[in-house]
C-alpha cells in the first residue's frame, strides 16, 4: 500500500460562533488516491479541506500534511487588480520560478481551461464559470503533490466539465498527484474517485468511506456503462442516508 | 570679521531700522562684525534659538520677557534697549465715545496673545480694563474696523497707518508709555556665557547697532529701507516713511534717558520702577532677582550722541 500523505487524528472543529462543524474525524489519504467528499450542504466539507491545508486550526486533534498543496477554493478568489495571466501565474511567482518557465506553464494551464483569449482580461470582465476556470488553472499551474479542490466544476457546463474531468485524471496520472475533491455531483464523484467519503451534518462527520472500482472507466462508453450507473446508485443511497442522519 | 547672527521679533519693518542701517552702511563691518539678520514672524520664537545657542543676539520685545528668563533660569540677558518707549498703543474709533483713555475699558478690546499676558495685565491692574471684554487680535484689523465700539492694540508705527489708508479714518492713538507703562522695548538680548566669554563682541554689536539707529533716524536711511524691503517686499516706502516719522514724533527711540546717555540707554531706577509695576500686575513674585535680567555694562556711555542733529 502506498504511503500516507495526509492524516487527521481525532480532529474536531468548533467555530468561535459555537457551531460544531466537525466531530472527531479520523482520515488518512494515501499517495495517488483521489478521495471525493460527498455530503449535504453545511456538513463540513470545506472545513475539512481547510483543516487539511492548514488554513484552519483544529479545535482538538492533530493533522499531518505534505509541503506543497494546491487549493481550488469554493469561490474563485481571484485578485481583482490582476489580469487572468497574473492570477494564474501567482503560485509560480511566489515560488520565484524563472520568467520563461513561468510563461510556458501559465499558458499551458490557461489552455487547459480554455481561457487563452482572456489572458489579459480582468476578473470582473469574466463570467462566473470563467472565473472558476482561472482558479482551477491557478491550482494546476504549480503541479502540487496534493491538490485540494472544493466544488471546482460546479459552475461549469456539462460538456466542459466532462472534458475537465478527463483532463484532471490525465494530469493526476502524469504528475502523480494526490487529490481530495469536494463535489455535489454523485456522477462526478463516482467517475473520478478512487475512494468516496460520505459525510453527514450537524455535527459534521464521516459516515461512509468506500473504495471505488474504476474498471468501468476503461469502457468506451464509461459514463453510461452499467457498472458506472450501479456504483452511482449505491453512492446515492449512502448520501441519502447521510442526509437523513441530519437532525 | 566675526560672524554674528541677530534675530528680530517680526517681519522686517522700520522698527528694526537701526540694525538694517548698521548692516547697510557698513557700521557692523567697521566694528569687525559680519552680521546676519534673521527676521521673525507672527509665530516665530527667536528667543528660544538664542537660548539654544543657534543665534548670538535677539531682539527682545520688552523687559517682561527678560524677567521671565530669570524666573525660568534661562541665561538670557538684556544688554541694551533701543527704544525708551514701548510703541504699544491702543486705538479707538474717533467720535464713538472713546476719545479719552478713561473711556477705553468700556470697549471690546482686540488684544493679541502676547499683549494679553503682559501689558494688558498692567492695564487691568492700573486702569481697570477687564479680561471679559477681550477678543483675540491676530494682526488683522478688520474686526476692529467693523465694530465702532471696540478698541485694538497696535504699534504706533504700523496699525494707524494701515487703518488710515485702507479704512479711511484716523483712529485715536493712545501710547501706553505715555500713560505710565515703563517697559523698555526693542532690547538687544544675548546669552550670559557670551557676555562672559567675549564681552568685546557684545560691546561691538551693541555700539554698532546704536550708531545704526542714529543714522537710521537722522541720516540717509535709503539703503537700510532697501534691505528691509528686500527681506519683506510687502512693506511700502510710504509705510516706512510713516513709521520713521512716528518713531521720531513719539520719541520712541531717542527720548528720556537716551538724550543724555545715548540710544540704547537703560537705568537701574527705571528697571526697578517697571518691575514694581509688573509685580503689582501679578506677573512676577516680588522676590524675583530681576537685576539678573539685564546688565548696564554696554550702554549709557553716550555712544553716538553726537550724531543727533542739533
Amino acid at each position: 500500500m502506498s504511503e500516507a500523505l495526509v492524516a487527521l487524528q481525532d480532529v474536531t472543529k468548533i467555530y468561535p460562533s459555537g457551531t460544531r462543524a466537525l466531530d472527531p474525524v479520523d482520515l488518512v489519504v494515501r499517495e495517488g488516491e483521489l478521495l471525493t467528499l460527498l455530503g449535504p450542504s453545511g456538513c463540513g466539507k470545506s472545513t475539512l479541506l481547510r483543516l487539511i491545508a492548514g488554513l484552519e486550526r483544529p479545535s482538538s486533534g492533530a493533522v499531518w500534511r505534505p509541503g506543497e498543496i494546491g487549493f481550488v477554493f469554493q469561490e474563485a478568489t481571484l485578485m481583482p487588480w490582476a489580469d487572468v495571466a497574473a492570477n494564474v501565474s501567482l503560485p509560480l511567482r511566489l515560488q520565484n520560478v524563472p520568467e520563461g518557465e513561468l510563461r510556458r506553464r501559465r499558458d499551458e494551464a490557461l489552455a487547459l481551461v480554455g481561457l487563452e483569449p482572456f489572458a489579459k482580461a480582468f476578473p470582473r470582465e469574466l463570467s462566473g464559470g470563467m472565473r472558476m476556470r482561472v482558479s482551477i488553472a491557478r491550482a494546476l499551474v504549480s503541479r502540487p503533490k496534493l491538490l485540494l479542490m472544493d466544488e471546482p466544476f460546479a459552475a461549469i457546463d456539462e460538456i466542459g466539465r466532462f472534458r475537465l474531468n478527463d483532463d484532471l485524471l490525465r494530469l493526476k496520472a502524469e504528475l502523480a498527484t494526490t487529490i481530495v475533491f469536494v463535489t455535489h455531483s454523485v456522477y462526478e464523484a463516482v467517475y473520478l474517485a478512487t475512494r468516496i467519503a460520505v459525510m453527514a451534518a450537524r455535527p459534521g462527520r464521516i459516515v461512509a468511506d468506500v473504495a471505488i472500482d474504476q474498471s468501468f472507466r476503461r469502457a468506451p462508453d464509461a459514463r453510461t456503462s452499467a457498472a458506472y450507473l450501479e456504483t452511482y446508485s449505491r453512492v446515492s443511497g449512502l448520501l441519502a442516508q447521510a442526509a437523513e442522519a441530519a437532525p | 570679521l566675526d560672524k554674528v547672527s541677530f534675530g528680530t521679533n517680526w517681519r522686517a519693518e522700520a522698527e528694526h531700522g537701526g540694525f538694517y542701517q548698521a548692516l547697510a552702511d557698513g557700521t557692523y563691518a567697521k566694528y569687525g562684525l559680519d552680521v546676519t539678520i534673521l527676521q521673525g514672524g507672527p509665530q516665530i520664537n527667536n528667543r528660544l534659538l538664542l537660548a539654544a545657542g543657534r543665534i548670538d543676539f535677539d531682539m527682545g520685545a520688552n523687559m517682561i520677557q527678560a524677567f521671565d528668563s530669570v524666573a525660568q533660569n534661562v541665561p538670557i540677558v538684556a544688554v541694551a534697549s533701543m527704544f525708551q518707549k514701548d510703541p504699544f498703543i491702543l486705538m479707538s474709533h474717533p467720535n464713538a465715545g472713546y476719545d479719552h483713555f478713561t473711556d477705553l475699558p468700556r470697549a471690546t478690546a482686540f488684544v493679541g496673545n502676547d499683549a494679553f499676558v503682559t501689558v494688558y495685565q498692567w492695564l487691568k491692574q492700573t486702569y481697570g480694563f477687564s479680561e471679559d471684554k477681550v477678543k483675540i487680535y491676530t494682526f488683522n484689523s478688520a474686526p476692529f474696523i467693523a465694530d465702532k465700539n471696540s478698541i485694538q492694540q497696535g504699534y504706533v508705527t504700523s496699525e494707524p497707518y494701515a487703518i488710515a489708508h485702507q479704512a479711511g479714518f484716523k483712529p485715536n492713538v493712545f501710547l501706553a508709555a505715555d500713560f505710565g507703562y515703563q517697559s523698555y522695548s526693542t532690547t538687544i538680548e544675548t546669552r550670559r556665557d557670551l557676555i562672559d566669554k567675549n564681552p568685546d563682541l557684545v560691546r561691538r554689536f551693541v555700539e554698532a547697532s546704536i550708531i545704526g539707529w542714529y543714522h537710521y533716524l537722522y541720516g540717509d536711511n535709503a539703503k537700510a529701507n532697501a534691505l528691509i524691503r528686500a527681506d519683506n517686499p510687502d512693506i511700502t516706502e510710504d509705510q516706512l516713511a510713516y513709521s520713521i516719522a512716528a518713531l521720531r514724533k513719539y520719541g520712541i527711540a531717542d527720548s528720556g534717558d537716551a538724550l543724555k546717555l545715548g540710544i540704547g540707554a537703560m537705568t537701574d531706577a527705571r528697571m526697578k520702577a517697571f518691575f514694581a509695576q509688573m509685580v503689582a500686575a501679578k506677573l512676577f513674585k516680588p522676590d524675583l532677582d530681576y537685576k539678573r535680567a539685564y546688565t548696564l555694562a554696554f550702554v549709557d556711555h553716550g555712544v553716538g550722541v553726537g550724531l543727533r542733529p542739533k
Partner: protein
Amino acid sequence: MKALRRAVPPVLAFIGFLVVWEAIVRAANIPPYILPPPSLIGTTLVADRAILLPALWVTLTITLEGLAAATLGGVLIAILFAQWRWLERAFLPFAVILQVTPIIAIAPLLLIYCTPATAVLLCAFLVAFFPILANTTLGLASAERNLRDLFTLYGASRWQTLWLLKAPAALPFFFAGLRIGGGLALIGAIAAELTAGTQGGRTGLAFRIVEAGYRLNIPRMFAALTLVALTGIAIYAALAVLSHWALRHWHESAAETP
C-alpha cells in the same frame, strides 16, 4: 488576559522612550528650557495642575464639539453627495477650498460676524470635517456592484439604498476618517483657540502652550503638550474601540481585537 498581553508593547515602547529621553537629557546636560527631561515634565504636570487641568477641560470641550460638528457635517454632506452625484461634482471643490483655507486668514472674518465661541467651533469644525467627508464619500461609493444591482432590482428608493446598503458599506471608511478627524479636531481646537480665541478667560491648552513658550517656561509647555498628546491618544483609542465594535461582525480589518 489577552487585552493585558496586547498592552505590553505600547507600554514597553513608552517606558523605553521616556528612559532614553531622560538619559539623553542628563548625559548631554541639556538645559530644561531647551528640552526638559520627562521627570521634570511629570513634576511640572503635578505642580501646575491647577492651571493645566481647567485648560485641558476647555480644549477638550472645543475638540469634542468640533468633532461632533465635523462628523455631523461631514457625514451629511457625504450623504448629499452620494445621493446626487452632480452635487458632489458641483460642491466638492468648495469642500476642498474649506479644507485648505488657512484658519489664521479666515478667523478674523469669522470674528466680525460670529461670537468667538462660534468662531472657535467653526474653525475646529473646518479642520476636522474634510477627512470625514472624503472617506465617507468614498465609502458610500464603494458598495459592491452586485448588491447595488440587487437594490435597483427590488425598486429600493434612494433613501432605502442609502440606509440599508451604502451606509453600512461605508462604515469602515467612515471610521477611518473619524479616527483621522479625531486628531484633527484636537489640532483644530488648538489652532482655533489661537486664532479665534475663547472669550475672556482664554484658558485652553493652546493658550497655555503659547504663553509658556513665549515666557520660556518650557517645562510647563511640555506638560501642556503631554496633556494634548494624552488627549489625542485617548480620542483615537476610543474611536478605535467604537469602530471595532461596529465592524466586528463582518469587516476584515476588525477580524482581530484592536
